[in-house]
């Protein structure tokens, strides 16, 4: 084989190689970031971590504000939620309406996040309540932890934490945006994604 033919073959091979790389990079769309947690597959879309969760025949696409690896160090202390807590159709989300405007934003976001998951996925009716009777609590039940009711207390506090005060009362707390981490951590526990 002459030297010219070898050079030609190599040149053609090189051009084909470049075309293949170019075609692959153009045709293959950029994939959303993936970051699995155990056997659970998570995809980041528009700032939210999505995963599929199945219960019976229903498959849900659930979006979380935080990836499980970002919240699995948040401890859940206290009791195990009672069977009654899980069995009741109504869940009361109660928080302090006299919090500062800045705190209220985080409380409202936490409440909405819980509301979506409790209703759409866990099939619960959410009732917005108040911890104490202050302005704005007209038309809302006022309650802390009450026997015979399933209550989630949402608080702004210094440390991010989840406490189950009684088997029927869950307290979620955290400073500022950290409260959202406590919400994600609780939901991951309920979905069985974090043990």
């Amino acid at each position, binding site marked *: 084989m002459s030297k010219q033919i070898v050079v030609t073959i190599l040149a053609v091979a090189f051009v084909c190689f470049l075309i293949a790389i170019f075609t692959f990079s153009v045709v293959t769309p950029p994939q959303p970031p993936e970051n699995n947690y155990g056997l659970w597959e998570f995809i980041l879309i*528009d700032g939210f971590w999505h995963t599929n969760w199945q219960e019976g025949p229903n498959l849900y696409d659930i979006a979380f504000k935080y990836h499980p690896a970002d919240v699995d160090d948040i401890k859940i202390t206290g009791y195990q939620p009672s069977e009654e807590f899980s069995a009741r159709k109504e869940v009361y989300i109660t928080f302090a309406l006299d919090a500062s405007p800045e705190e209220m934003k985080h409380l409202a976001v936490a409440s*909405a*996040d819980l509301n979506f998951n409790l209703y759409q996925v866990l099939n619960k009716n*959410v*009732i*917005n309540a108040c911890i104490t009777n202050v302005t704005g609590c007209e*038309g809302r039940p006022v309650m802390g932890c009450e026997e015979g009711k399933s209550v989630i207390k949402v608080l702004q506090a210094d440390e991010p934490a989840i406490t189950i005060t009684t088997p029927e009362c869950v307290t979620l707390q955290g400073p500022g945006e950290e409260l959202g981490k406590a919400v994600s951590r609780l939901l991951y526990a309920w979905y069985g994604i974090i043990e």
Partner: protein
Amino acid sequence: MDKRKVMGWFVIIVMVAGGMGVVLTGDGSVQTYNGYKFTQTAQGWQTKVNGQNTVFNFYPGNIAFTGLPPEAASFKDKKVLTVSYNPDVDLTPAFAQLQYDFELKLPDSVFIIRAVTNGSSLPLFTCANATSSSPVVVFDQAENATSTYIDNCLTITGFDAYGFATQAEALLYTMLGVIE
């Protein structure tokens, strides 16, 4: 227990439940805020405003105290409102969605001008264009969720789509007269 006692308890239970503004139905809980009946749905909280069924992400009682400036209430009477946003940040899709929400959820009698603060995808409007008859709402991204009113212009910022939406939706509720 005789019939009168049963009726008595029934009346008491209805009055207590009604007083709390809470009714439970098969479709989700129902709560009343400022005379508006809100039903929990898969999409959010649904109510009828101006004869139209409208769904919101947040229950109004949960965002009524998020610090919207009192001057925002003056937007309720305006016939023209410009909703503009920064198109160059991560929250741009959320801004665009809320801009659409303002157009969709406010009554037809309010003319919404859809705009951006820079670029060329939509007309350019900033606080500099705000007038008393045609105020401007600007959505932007920042470290904190804030809302500031200066000279007929309300600037709402947020750290993420959800945090930002608390105030944007509080403004919608205010303009619709749900939050007073």
